[in-house]
């Protein structure tokens, strides 16, 4: 593959899509936002000064495009409802029972996500949902890598505690 700008950008498309999808909760709209973000990135390539990595630069463009799309329709409140109702692709190699349990955990995590402190939620979403490495999330957030690692762990800890509490409550008659 050549290293033309279009090819470089296309390498980031899956992650851009996940970011857009998380914000919009609509596959088609997320696709349109990514398409628009790619075009904007190509036309603004001269403005990319290399101080940030391409991943973080594209992330900002994608988030801005998604926010523009959200402004026209205030859909944020509906987003999590839709996430709940949509099937989540499960990891490979899971039996149906495991897959059901995993899906239940994922649904529950989404419900509890809103209750996280903002800094933890953002670090968690970037690394666990959008697929950014800790280094990239650190650059996006403008924080040291260690801070991101700590926030991600705190988020997981809170979510795991709440999920355990939920499961314990369900187990009791």
């Amino acid at each position: 593959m050549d290293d033309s700008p279009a090819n470089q950008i296309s390498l980031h498309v899956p992650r851009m899509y996940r970011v857009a999808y998380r914000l919009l909760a609509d596959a088609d709209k997320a696709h349109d936002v990514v398409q628009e973000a790619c075009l904007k990135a190509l036309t603004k390539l001269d403005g990319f000064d290399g101080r940030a990595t391409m991943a973080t630069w594209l992330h900002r463009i994608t988030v801005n495009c998604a926010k523009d799309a959200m402004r026209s329709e205030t859909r944020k409140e509906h987003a999590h409802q839709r996430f709940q109702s949509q099937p989540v692709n499960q990891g490979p190699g899971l039996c149906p029972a495991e897959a059901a349990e995993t899906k239940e955990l994922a649904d529950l995590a989404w419900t509890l996500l809103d209750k996280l402190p903002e800094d933890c939620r953002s670090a968690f979403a970037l690394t666990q949902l959008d697929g950014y490495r800790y280094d990239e999330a650190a650059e996006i957030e403008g924080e040291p890598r260690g801070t991101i690692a700590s926030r991600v762990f705190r988020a997981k800890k809170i979510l795991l505690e709440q999920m355990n509490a939920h499961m314990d409550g369900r187990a009791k008659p």
Partner: protein
Amino acid sequence: MTNERDEILMSQLADGELSSDQANELLLSVLDAPADREKLKALLCFRQATVGWRIRQPPRPVMVVAEPPRTFRRSRMARHMGGLAVAACVGGLLVLAGIWAAGWLGSPVRPMHQWQIAPGPDAPRAAVRVTPEQMQQVAMVFALHESVAGPLAWYAADDQNIRLASAGGTEAGQTPIAVLLKLGPAGPDAAARTLVIVCREDRPAVIELPAESPGRAGLRVYLAPRTVNGKVEMQYAIAVDGGEHQPALASLAGRRRIGLAETSLGQLALGEKVLNVEASAWPMPQERK
């Protein structure tokens, strides 16, 4: 173990963020501590629970092209004012002129969205050719769109979509090549989906037509045509999607020399259905400017 620092390391281990040395060291210490093993197991389960999000893919390919295609549908076109309204008037006049000319020549011209180059049930397949009137129509429509949108790298239309891509510096000088692409189930009475495409010689075009309705498949077409002895030698790849929630179901690719007579490019197997893919192509005369 375990203090919070170690737990943060376990979290990073579950996320694959530790170097192999760090990971080995941590795993060795975790092996001796059952409580830590449970913590690590919980973190790994948690990681597994969100894997679905990290492998999520766009429903259709996102095209990253050097020249951004200007894409709009007919419903959006209707909203454009000024230039497009004028262009529509010009187009109407051109079509009327075409109909008048065709009537004068004794041969009716069909509207663009009713291309019917398929033969009747008894007609021999070899007799299906693009008529001069149809070639004239394609030329007029392409010229009309270029008059509105400027030089085009490619133009593609079916009965629901119109897609355009602006020409770059060198593309505008390349010979435009018209391609009629027909996808339809086998059988003379089966309704076919016909695409009118104009692209440029030696300039590959990647065209995406989304699924517009539940029964309608999305389509991606790659065409790289060149003229050889008045015919068009075309390299092509065609993929048909099964719909929004299904992966690409069928594709075909190849190279053919195509002329005005309808030529089979192959067949696409879509579940229990088989789609015939046929094409006609011709180089279009370039306007002198």
